[in-house]
């Protein structure tokens, strides 16, 4: 009887201790995911106690506190990661949509193919309710830097006018011009290259 009571007391006090023990919070978690196109980059999680690099999809590392080093990475189940991070992943914005419009040699005239793309550009800005769309003018390397700076600016301005005429609020359009300093296809100076005579539009 004495023994039974003693066991009961030990059990009860153990249960009480378990209840009142301060619960350690779950650790913070970092997980690497595949990109939209399936490629995988890498991240490094670092604090003064140590660092860990994740370079495989669905690899994760936990960090208990700033005073503890990041744990050795482990492979997690994709479904569990998607469930735990559902809210943040569901709120992700769509990837940006980029258009490249090409121009005739040394001119502000769009090629026929590019002119035909304008309605799609307009529709995309409307559909996405974009308030932040970039219009960036470029040239090839024929002519002086200054002349090309001017031409790239005029190319961007022409596109902005077309979009504004179609009812797009010019305040959502951010215009800039790079002249011949940002070639799509790298070439020497004074090379006529149709793919460099362009305006790039990024709809965000």
């Amino acid at each position, binding site marked *: 009887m004495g023994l039974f009571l003693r066991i009961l007391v030990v059990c009860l006090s153990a249960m009480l201790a378990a209840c009142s023990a301060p619960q350690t919070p779950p650790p913070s978690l970092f997980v690497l995911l595949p990109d*939209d196109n399936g490629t995988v*980059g890498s991240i490094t999680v*670092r604090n003064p106690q140590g660092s860990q690099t994740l370079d495989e999809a669905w690899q994760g590392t936990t960090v208990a506190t700033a005073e503890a080093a990041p744990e050795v990475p482990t492979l997690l189940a994709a479904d569990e990661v998607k469930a735990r*991070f559902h809210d943040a*992943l569901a*709120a992700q*914005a769509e990837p940006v949509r980029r258009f490249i419009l090409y121009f005739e040699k040394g001119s502000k005239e769009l090629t026929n193919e590019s002119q035909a793309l304008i309605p799609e550009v307009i529709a995309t800005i409307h559909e996405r*309710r974009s*308030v932040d769309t970039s219009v960036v003018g470029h040239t090839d390397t024929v002519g002086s830097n200054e002349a090309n700076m001017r031409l790239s600016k005029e190319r961007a301005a022409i596109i902005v006018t077309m979009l504004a005429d179609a009812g797009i609020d010019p305040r959502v359009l951010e215009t800039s011009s790079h002249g011949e300093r940002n070639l799509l296809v790298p070439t020497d100076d004074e090379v006529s290259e149709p793919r460099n005579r362009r305006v790039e539009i990024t709809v*965000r």
Partner: protein
Amino acid sequence: MKRFCIFLLVMVFCPSFVQAQDERIGSIKNVEGQVFVLRGGETLAAEAGTLLYRGDQLKTGESGRVGVIFRDDTRLSLGGNSDLAVEQFEFAPGEGRLALVLRLARGMAAFVSGQISKLAPESVRLETPVGTVGVRGTHFVMNIVG
């Protein structure tokens, strides 16, 4: 001439004056539940289409969610009870100014890198109370408990 000299002096000694002309750094695309932008001591209710400026901070309520696209095409989203500050944003590739530093004080975030990571990966950093994340062109999630 005198006026021009004063103008030059102002331009040389107050680079922030030049910068201040457009400090837009992105926009909010998706909002659900309670989401706020903290800007210069004010708290604004966020909605799809709200522009973001340098120095903004985003906070979500318990069931809040928000998705953002920065001007360099970086995409960032937050789940509930999250607190994220934009500590640095510089996207001027022509002038070699590139930096993206975000600070997640608590909550849940998903990050998809953009142009700044591509052009200057060492200039992209996500700070948290338990450590700092360096990014090499990628997609990742993090949950900061605290």
